[in-house]
């Protein structure tokens, strides 16, 4: 009985996620009846429905990947930094990825190259932050990491500003701007799967680390006293989170607030343990992404960039959660 009670939140999330998936696949401008779509799922539906699925499928994949990756990375960062305001962009990864993409767009590259460039840019920024922080040998280095991350992010943002000035205003600049604001509809199925690989790898690492993250959250001294190598584990966790964030931003552009909001909501449901917090955050993040995906294309033909929506909804939601939980305790 106790086990069933413990599993209820996860079951509930899973059901909501399923409903969200169906909602995305079943609605869109290419109106298709449910049975047509169902037939198309199994390969023999009318061409309209097939086309609709061929377009909505990658969008769904992009939304789920982005939401889960950013939420998982956010949860990891919040545990590692012992700070509920830690977000996936802490190491400057999002800014670095944005710079990578903008540079590729400036040089006129195709979408695959833009995605790779963004991925590399994000990892470079994160690596820069980690490397610089490693040079300072101060205790568990949380402050050093945050500062180096801020610096890496600021450098990337400055570079981005430069790119924006130099870009051709009629064709390049709008493309860069829209890329940065985030979209789930850009990516093809192949690109989505390419991004899914590092996200799964990063998530697997974080999930395997599980209880070790709990130990790390007690502090370096405690971690070593309990027999765990604190520095390598922390580095691994940070690298995994940076990997997930970079892949997500490379796929969909910069979608903020999911990484901050989802772990908070998850914490209310499943508690603080990393082994439960990370999967729950990823589920909630994916759900949130589905919601803003619906909103992004639900109001007329022009697509509202999902980065704007995630901020417009995520920030107030976060504030609400924060006030509600602080009232409680």
């Amino acid at each position, binding site marked *: 009985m106790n086990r069933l009670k413990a599993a209820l939140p996860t079951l509930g999330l899973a059901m909501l996620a399923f409903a969200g998936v169906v909602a995305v696949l079943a609605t*869109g*401008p*290419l*109106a298709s009846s449910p049975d047509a779509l169902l037939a198309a799922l199994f390969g023999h539906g009318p*061409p*309209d429905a097939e*086309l*609709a699925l*061929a*377009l*909505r499928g990658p*969008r769904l994949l992009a939304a789920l990947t982005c939401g889960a990756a950013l939420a998982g990375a956010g949860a990891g960062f919040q545990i590692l930094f012992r700070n509920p305001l830690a977000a996936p962009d802490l190491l400057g990864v999002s800014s670095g990825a944005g710079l990578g993409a903008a540079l590729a*767009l400036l040089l*006129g590259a*195709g*979408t695959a190259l833009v995605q790779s460039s963004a991925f590399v840019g994000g990892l470079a920024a994160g690596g820069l932050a980690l490397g610089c922080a490693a040079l300072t040998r101060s205790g568990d280095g949380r402050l050093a990491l945050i500062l180096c991350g801020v610096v890496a992010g600021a450098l990337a943002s400055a570079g981005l500003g430069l790119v924006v*000035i*130099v870009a*051709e*205003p*009629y*064709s390049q*600049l*709008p*493309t860069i701007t*829209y890329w940065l604001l985030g*979209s789930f*509809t*850009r990516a093809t199925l192949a690109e989505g799967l390419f991004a899914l690989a590092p996200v799964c790898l990063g998530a697997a690492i974080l999930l395997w680390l599980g209880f070790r993250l709990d130990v790390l959250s007690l502090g370096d001294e405690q971690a070593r006293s309990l027999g765990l190598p604190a520095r390598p584990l922390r580095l691994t966790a940070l690298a995994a989170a940076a990997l997930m964030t970079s892949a997500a931003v490379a796929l969909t552009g910069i979608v903020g607030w999911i990484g901050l909001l989802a772990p908070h909501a998850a914490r209310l449901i499943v508690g603080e343990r990393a082994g439960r917090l990370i999967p729950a955050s990823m589920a909630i993040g994916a759900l949130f992404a589905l919601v803003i995906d619906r909103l992004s*294309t639900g109001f*007329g*033909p*022009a*697509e509202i*960039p999902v980065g704007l929506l995630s901020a417009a909804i995520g920030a107030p939601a976060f504030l609400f959660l924060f006030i509600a939980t602080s009232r409680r305790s």
Partner: protein
Amino acid sequence: MTTTRRSALISMGGAIAVAACTRASSPTDNRNVVAAGSPAALLVWAVARERLAGWPRKPGPASLAALPALAAELPELGTLTGGGRPAGLEAIAALKPRLIIDYGGVDAGYQALARRLEDRLGVDWSLIDGALTRIPEAIRQAGGLLESERTAGPLAEEAAEVLEHWRLTPPGPGFYYARGADGLETGFRGALATEVLEGAGWTNVAEGSRDIGRVTREQVAAWDPEVLVTLDHRFAQSVRHDPVWRWRRNGDRRRLLLLPDLPFGWVDRPPSLNRLLGCAWIADPKTATLTIAALSRRLYGMAPAEIPQPRWIQ
């Protein structure tokens, strides 16, 4: 030699030297017109290119290759209005321009901006209406300002003729204008970017919003246009064999029209005289070649052999 003869020789030598210097520097002296933005730059280039002080935004190498050598010599000054790298006001003032021309929107906002910059720079500022249908008047006005009526006159007449034919074009297919490398940015019905196509009777399928906006592939598929129009050859290449873009609802193959981009786009970038070429072609695709050749030569100074053609991509 007596003193008088020597001084006469010296002064003659001096006069010849001064005359030589003046002649050598008069071409640059003449470059005293600054264009506030790319549309104005095109206007000045067409009407009196030797007076253009510099490009607000220097065209890319491919475009420069399609223009006379003078284009590559002109420096990049930055823009005073519109997007792009902003010009340093002091650098502009240091050029001591006689006239600044802005070509484009003329509503109250732009006029206020014009007055403000005119005060700051202390240079005469002319704001010319950039509407497509008023191009002949714009050309004549520029000709008067730039003291280049001999060039402006015939150009304005040709432009008027092109626009006349353009207005009388029979209705055309439904189209989607794909902007940018991924083609998901478009001009909605009534936008400046698609004016050439819409004015010629083609139907813009993109509706429901204003001006420029971003859409999804599914939305394009739902609109089901007959023709995809683009200036971007990369987009054309990438969707050439993509069934999502090429197949229509009824199973037909969607036509893909790649309009030339060099030295400047035929319909959109920038919104200036370059659009006349699009108007000329769309009025009568089959027999427009001569008109386009002549127009290109007048507008840009290009030899006929170099003029690009629109392509229907299979």
